[in-house]
């Protein structure tokens, strides 16, 4: 049996790309003949892909397995599923609801809408034997659309987190950060569903309560397509005079990322929609305490015994941040339960779950 993993685009710094590359690597290790197909890839990764002709040949063989990763609309995906005669499993990574983009970015609005429609189409595709969700939240979404619960399985995405153990601390960055201030971190693309306004309001209240000696590092690509969203954030930051406290970081390398995770005092997760939350797992790996807003799959990713709020109460967030940064016992409590929770995301455990489906 050959396993064909298909996705629209293979890249390095992307949750789906990481999941696919790790899946291929670990399945190969488990002696499964595994290949990857993508319509495009970052330059260095093109060698890892098979050609469209090879794909056509492989998916016609009934003994093979096609593992289709769905996280964005993919025109070619329709053709692949139509032509597939082999067993098909769908890995559902969730698609951000289009309404988040409606007022900011029309191209993303239409793209996510098309993605949502494609999900509905996949739900009724009789060729798909199994639907694998990253989280129970994703599986619930599929169940609501009409997927038979017997066909559903929850398997978290494979991540490159263990690679952090090989990363080094960036000394220049470290010296910059160690300036006597409290440092908080959030990671994720600067897009409308990530709840940046909650972050800004939280920092504003933190400054009002405890003074301006604080910095929030927002790490994530800032797409200039979403200018309207960016300008809105800029206006909000300028209104509260938080230019010194809130910093956007672009193109952060692996060592720098490791440094931020290792040095910061707490991680903030205020996203309004998450199908799974890789930065939470990364924070738990680095023993960084987390303050989160309960949306989507955030609570289940975070695990038990953590600080999570059902509603965005900015006063509470600000006090919680201060408490976590100052009170060592609270910090230890959160990081201990966080580390325990991280065991679920270890590659060997996830691979075991995947293999149990075969």
């Amino acid at each position, binding site marked *: 049996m050959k396993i064909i993993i298909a996705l629209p685009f293979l890249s390095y710094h992307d949750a789906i790309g990481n999941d696919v590359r790790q899946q291929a690597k670990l399945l190969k290790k488990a002696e499964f003949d595994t290949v990857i197909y993508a319509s495009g890839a970052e330059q260095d990764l093109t060698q890892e892909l098979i050609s469209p002709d090879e794909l056509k040949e492989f998916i016609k063989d009934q003994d093979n397995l096609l593992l289709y990763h769905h996280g964005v609309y993919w025109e070619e995906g329709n053709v692949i599923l139509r032509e597939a005669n082999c067993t098909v499993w769908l890995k559902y990574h969730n698609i951000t609801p289009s309404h988040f983009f409606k007022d900011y970015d029309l191209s993303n609005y239409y793209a996510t809408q098309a993605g949502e429609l494609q999900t509905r189409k996949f739900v009724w595709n009789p060729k798909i034997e199994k639907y694998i969700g990253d989280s129970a939240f994703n599986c619930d979404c599929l169940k609501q659309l009409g997927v038979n619960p017997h066909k559903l399985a929850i398997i978290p995405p494979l991540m490159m987190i263990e690679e952090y153990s090989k990363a080094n601390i960036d000394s220049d960055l470290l010296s910059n950060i160690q300036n006597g201030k409290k440092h908080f971190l959030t990671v994720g693309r600067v897009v409308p569903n990530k709840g940046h306004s909650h972050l800004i309001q939280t920092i504003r209240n933190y400054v*009002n309560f405890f003074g*301006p000696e604080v910095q929030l590092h927002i790490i994530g690509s800032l797409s200039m397509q979403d200018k309207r969203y960016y300008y809105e954030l800029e206006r909000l*930051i*300028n209104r509260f*005079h938080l*230019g010194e406290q*809130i910093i956007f970081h672009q*193109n952060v390398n692996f060592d720098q990322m490791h440094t931020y995770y290792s040095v910061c005092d707490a991680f903030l997760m205020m996203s309004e929609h998450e199908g799974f939350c890789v930065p939470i797992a990364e924070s738990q790996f680095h023993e960084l305490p987390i303050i989160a807003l309960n949306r989507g799959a955030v609570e289940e990713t975070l695990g038990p015994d953590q600080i999570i709020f059902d509603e965005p109460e900015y006063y509470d967030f600000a*006090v919680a941040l201060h408490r976590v940064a100052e009170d060592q016992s609270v910090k230890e409590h959160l990081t201990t339960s966080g580390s325990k929770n991280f065991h679920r995301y270890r590659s060997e455990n996830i691979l075991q779950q995947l293999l149990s489906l075969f």
Partner: protein
Amino acid sequence: MQIDRILKEIQEEAQVRKSQPPHPDSQNLKKIRIQIVEPPPPLFFRAIQKLHQYGWQSPKMFYLWIASIPKWGYPLLLLRDLVRLPTLRKRIQDTNDLLESHFIALNQRIDTELWPRHEEQIRIMNSRLIEALNYVKQLDKKIGSPKLESTQNVEQKLEENWLDQFYFDFENHFRGTKEDILKVQSAYLPYLQKSGVNFENKPALDLGCGRGEWLQALKSTNIAAKGVDQNQIMIKECLDSGLDVVEQDVIEYLNLLEPESVGAITGFHIVEHLPFSTLVHLLDECLRVLISGGIAIFETPNPENLMMGSCNFYTDPTHINPIPPHTLSFMLTQRGFVETTVIRLSPLASFPDTKVIDPELRQVVDSYYKEQNYAVIGKKF
């Protein structure tokens, strides 16, 4: 438990801090611009990047160079596009041709692959649709003009009553005694019992129940059943025997029934009384009212028997046409019944010794001694 305590403490502290004045330093924040570490490069650097990316001789760079010429840049590009217009037109034409060839290929595929595969089903569906539309038209007419009890209708009713008495006497004379019929029809009981239908909720229905022999047989085996017949005298006799019967035209009665409300349907010597189109309608209605898994049995004289086909069939003046077994079997299948089977019953009592018969005449003799009746049994899927 500990986390609940921490959350409670946080909320309490937040309430306290809300009521306190803000931190003194928070009022003197520096008004500096938003900080983006490694923002997108400025326009000049982006131009250099593009030059590096595409090379200065590439069409893209050529386009950018021309566009950057002040005032004349865009008119020049417009001029260039005008020059390229015929080429573009040719390209559009080529694309058009390609699309057209695809459409032709697609049409061919529909004609050669899809149409033959589904032609029969489409035709059957069309014919059923036309029938349904005709039926709706008839219903419309009925609803639109209710019939008055004219003198002619009363006369017709009288005539029908006279026919009732005639047919009752006729059956008693020709069809055989009730006991004989009961014995023959008992052969069908195992089919109903095997069908696995719960007749308590979905009773069996006997169309044209006549003197009620079959209903009697069902009653004795505890199968709930109902009979329908138009003959008032026969209905009276059934009621006197304590059977559940209705005096109505079978088609009209079937039309009133809910879909999937009947466990089994039987019609003994009824189909040969009906014109072809009415028979088809009867089969359709039977299929509609039967529950899934329920069976329908239609018994009729067997024209394969020479005497039956040529003479005895016409003993009953109300018979229309003899129906050969394969025709009735096909009709049931064509209307949607499954697992259709033919069983032949009532053979002539004495069959001559085959050794005595001349081999050339054997087929004729066989046909002469064939079973006099047959039944087609169909099942609803």
